[in-house]
């Protein structure tokens, strides 16, 4: 926290905060409790809440779920959807993409045909570069021998993304139209966005059958929230004059919505599409944890058996798909309709469609006669997994490299992480809650403090306190380390236009990668332990911190930096007294995002082996303990929300104080 300490850099608005009686009372009580604990006088029941006092939340939830599921018959409805329309759609795409023996029995489509069509689409959206990216991704996937895995993943994605888009759009329209819908779904959305993904998975499995259907449902639910937000945002932003022009043209309500509002909100809706696609990809890969076949499952299996070369290749494939989907959907956002000169013949107006179709058909036909064009067999693939594996492992075995990673692992573990964890665990629960409350109060004021107090008390009452603290410890350590890397990197990059755009591009690209990918280098370098977990989170969270640091510094109004220059400030003075204070609210947004990302990643890292909530959560996936799963998930969510509320409240306040809002 030390770095965001506002008085360090002279931001107004916090003078006198230290003498605030509420803050003093909170801190004072916490210290008294800690003091008593230190001298051994604290009664045991004040150190941890006794087992007997912990309400059986999970059991109660299980009873409630059982009632809803069986007695109210919800399971029949969900099973009907799962086994009916959803499975039908998934089977159809599975047949087309990788030849599952289901209706319409046309597939699998030859990889060359898909690559050709994708390249033409890429060219239409973004010229040669995009064509190369789109075609290249598919060619790479085929040549490296991962076509079927990739298509298994894609077959779920192409069903989940449109459904998530549609549902998000409808809910977004409802939230924009009716204030009560908005108030009703806002809190649900913020919980959903902080809920660990394992908590999406188990209900999906229980209600929607194991396999692609559950995977698709979890993916859809996971991808809906940002679409809702973008829809309402876009609709609210439609210029009032355009709306009035629609009304004066005599539009009915339906016409207003479909002919005026939705087309005018095109940009935001397409940004929503982009986010839906990226979240779907991230989630589809993660559904490997509930046994969904595809790239994610392959990666999980390879990492589990420490086959680093193959893991790396799969990682590259996933990253390529992520970049391709992101760039193409973003190109679609900025693609504006263009008019054709009068008298342009029909075929010329639809040239891309025709060429794409032609390419598709030509390769489809060729593939009927030449096998390699249809499918690249295991033997024919260019996978260099084994060689890679040997190369990576021998690189890591070089003495110098080994010494560095060994030392880092030893230093972080013994000198930093373990002592820090133990001291957090040593703090009595009530004191911990009070400290968190004080922090929230200091940052955001009364409201975040009340929420923080309530949320952490709930966590304490859930009976998973120690594991929650360990989760929190991992998050805090990782975020602090990534601040030490990300902020200086951002400050450096912000000094020149060129480096800013380079690093921002790198950050943008890195943010499109499914989080799962970040485990690969962590495991490669540090093996399976706490340091690898922290390392994976650190790379993941450095991205938003760097990004928002650059953005914050670059958007300081030029008049202000010019004024500093004219006052004779040195570079360092300008940075500390002008730029950083002005950039701080934006940087805080990055800090907040880093914390949210860390909470997300720490749960996935359970795969590496942790002792926190994620581990317990992952265990629930194997069974049917829905209650426990939800309680654990909510614990993560409640902790994340506490930080979210406090930091965002602080940002708002600060922006107002600086006149930036």
């Amino acid at each position, binding site marked *: 926290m030390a770095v965001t300490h506002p008085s360090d850099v002279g931001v107004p608005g916090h003078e006198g905060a230290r003498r605030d009686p509420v803050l003093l009372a909170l801190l004072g009580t916490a210290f008294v409790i800690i003091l008593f604990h230190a001298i051994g006088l604290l009664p045991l029941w004040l150190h941890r809440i006794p087992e007997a006092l912990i309400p059986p939340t999970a059991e109660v939830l299980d009873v409630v779920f059982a009632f809803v599921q069986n007695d109210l018959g919800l399971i029949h409805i969900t099973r009907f959807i799962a086994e009916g329309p959803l499975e039908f759609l998934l089977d159809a795409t599975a047949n087309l993409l990788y030849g599952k023996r289901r209706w319409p029995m046309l597939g699998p489509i030859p990889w060359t045909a898909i690559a050709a069509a994708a390249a033409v689409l890429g060219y239409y959206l973004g010229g040669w570069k995009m064509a190369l990216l789109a075609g290249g991704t598919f060619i790479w996937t085929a040549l490296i021998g991962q076509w079927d895995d990739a298509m298994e993943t894609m077959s779920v994605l192409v069903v989940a993304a449109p459904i998530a888009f549609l549902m998000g759009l409808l809910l977004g329209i409802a939230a924009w139209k009716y204030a009560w819908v908005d108030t009703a779904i806002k809190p649900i959305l913020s919980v959903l966005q902080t809920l660990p993904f394992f908590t999406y998975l188990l209900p999906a499995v229980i209600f929607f059958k194991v396999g692609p259907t559950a995977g698709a449902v979890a993916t859809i639910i996971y991808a809906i929230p940002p679409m809702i937000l973008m829809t309402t945002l876009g609709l609210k932003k439609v210029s009032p004059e355009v709306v*009035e*022009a629609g009304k*004066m*043209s*005599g539009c*009915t309500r339906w016409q207003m919505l479909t002919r005026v509002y939705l087309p005018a909100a*095109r940009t935001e809706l397409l940004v929503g599409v982009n986010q839906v696609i990226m979240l779907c990809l991230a989630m589809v890969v993660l559904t490997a944890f509930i046994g969904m076949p595809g790239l994610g499952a392959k990666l999980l299996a390879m990492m589990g058996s420490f086959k680093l070369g193959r893991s790396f290749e799969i990682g590259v494939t996933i990253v390529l798909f992520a970049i391709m989907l992101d760039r193409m959907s973003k190109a679609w956002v900025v693609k504006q309709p263009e*008019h054709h000169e009068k008298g342009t013949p029909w075929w010329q107006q639809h040239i891309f469609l025709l060429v794409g179709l032609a390419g598709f058909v030509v390769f489809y036909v060729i593939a009927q006669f030449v096998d390699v064009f249809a499918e690249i067999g295991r033997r024919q693939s260019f996978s260099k997994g084994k060689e890679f594996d040997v190369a990576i492992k021998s690189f890591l075995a070089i003495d110098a490299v080994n010494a560095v990673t060994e030392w880092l692992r030893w230093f972080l573990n013994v000198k930093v992480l373990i002592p820090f964890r133990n001291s957090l665990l040593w703090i009595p629960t009530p004191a911990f809650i009070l400290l968190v409350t004080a922090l929230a109060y200091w940052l955001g004021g009364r409201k975040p403090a009340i929420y923080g107090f309530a949320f952490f008390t709930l966590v304490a009452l859930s009976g998973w306190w120690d594991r929650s603290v360990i989760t929190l410890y991992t998050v805090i350590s990782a975020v602090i380390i990534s601040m030490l890397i990300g902020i200086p990197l951002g400050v450096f990059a912000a000094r020149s236009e060129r480096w800013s755009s380079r690093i921002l591009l790198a950050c943008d690209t890195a943010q499109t990668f499914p989080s799962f990918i970040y485990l690969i280098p962590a495991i490669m370098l540090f093996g399976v332990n706490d340091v690898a977990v922290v390392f994976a989170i650190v790379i993941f969270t450095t991205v938003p911190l760097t990004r928002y640091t650059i953005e914050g510094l670059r958007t300081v109004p030029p008049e202000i930096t010019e004024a500093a220059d004219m006052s004779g400030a040195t570079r360092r003075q300008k940075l500390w007294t002008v730029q950083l204070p002005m950039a701080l609210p934006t940087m805080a947004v990055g800090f907040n995002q880093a914390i949210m990302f860390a909470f997300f990643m720490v749960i996935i890292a359970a795969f590496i082996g942790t002792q926190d909530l994620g581990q317990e959560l992952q265990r629930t996936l194997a069974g049917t303990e829905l209650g426990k799963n939800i309680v654990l998930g909510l614990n993560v969510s409640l902790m994340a929300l506490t930080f979210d509320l406090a930091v965002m409240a602080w940002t708002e306040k600060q922006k107002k104080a600086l006149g930036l809002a």
Partner: protein
Amino acid sequence: MAPVISAKNVWKLFGPDPERYLRSMPEGYGFDDIRADGYIAGVRDVSVDVTEGEMLVIMGLSGSGKSTLVRCFSRLHDITGGTIEVGGQDIMSLAEKELIELRRSKMGMVFQSFGLLPHRTVLENVAFPLEMRGQDKHTRRDRALEVVRLVGLEGREDYFPRELSGGQQQRVGIARSLAIEPDIWFLDEPFSALDPLIRREMQDEFLRLQEMLGKTIVFITHDFDEALRLADRIAIMKDGAIEQCDTPDEIVMYPATEYVRKFTEDIDKARVVHARGLSKPVNGVAPEGAPVDGKATIQDLARQLIDETREAIPVADGSGNVIGVMQRSDALDLLLGGA
């Protein structure tokens, strides 16, 4: 002749419960009193009639309520008190369906920042109101082409709004508002977003169109010169109320309030006032000699006035009938600024 639009004691308040507040509001409450109670008075007790074929210009500074008033006329805003009749029909009593029908058949509106639909071509934007009322593709295309030609955008039919300059975009806005052949034409600061040169050109264009079409017009502007140039009558608004509503000649010569007088101060009155505005009834005296055109400004007549030997100059209307006499000294005073 019955007015096309007739507003009587119209109020429009913004706030938590404006209807109830208005009912309980004491008589004679001003803009600031209302604001102190947490309400914003968009329109205060406005009564005004617009007759057929007339161009009423509503002039006021930003926040004076002029845009709010015109939105009350078309019921884009529901009014808080008073009545507005359009074509003899109380528009507040219309059901949603009837209101839509009214807009589809009788009203057109032009907006300050054009309000064009960004995803539609010029032609599709212009055809939009026709499409809304369900006209078939062929007729609406023909009609849209016709109006596009009318506003001089031929050859740009397939362009998208972002490919056009501001002046051209507003031509599209004008074409769209004319597509359904409305009886009433609302223009909300149509030229304010344009450069001065383009603005002038568009005003001329607008006058040409009006000459041809003869619509009933409510025109909003914050530019007093523009108001003087275009208006049959000007209503000057301040804090939601109309300060004065009269012909340009009358407003320039006899400002009703201090506020109006400030606007007229720097105006070259000779360029505004017409011979007709200075003429008084003949009262039995037979004026001598050839009459001057009543529609000529004093500026137009300057040379003739200086050379003139008659003290009383007859003024004629468009068809040559004498409608009154103008005193030469009055005209010269105005011309030389000595009045």
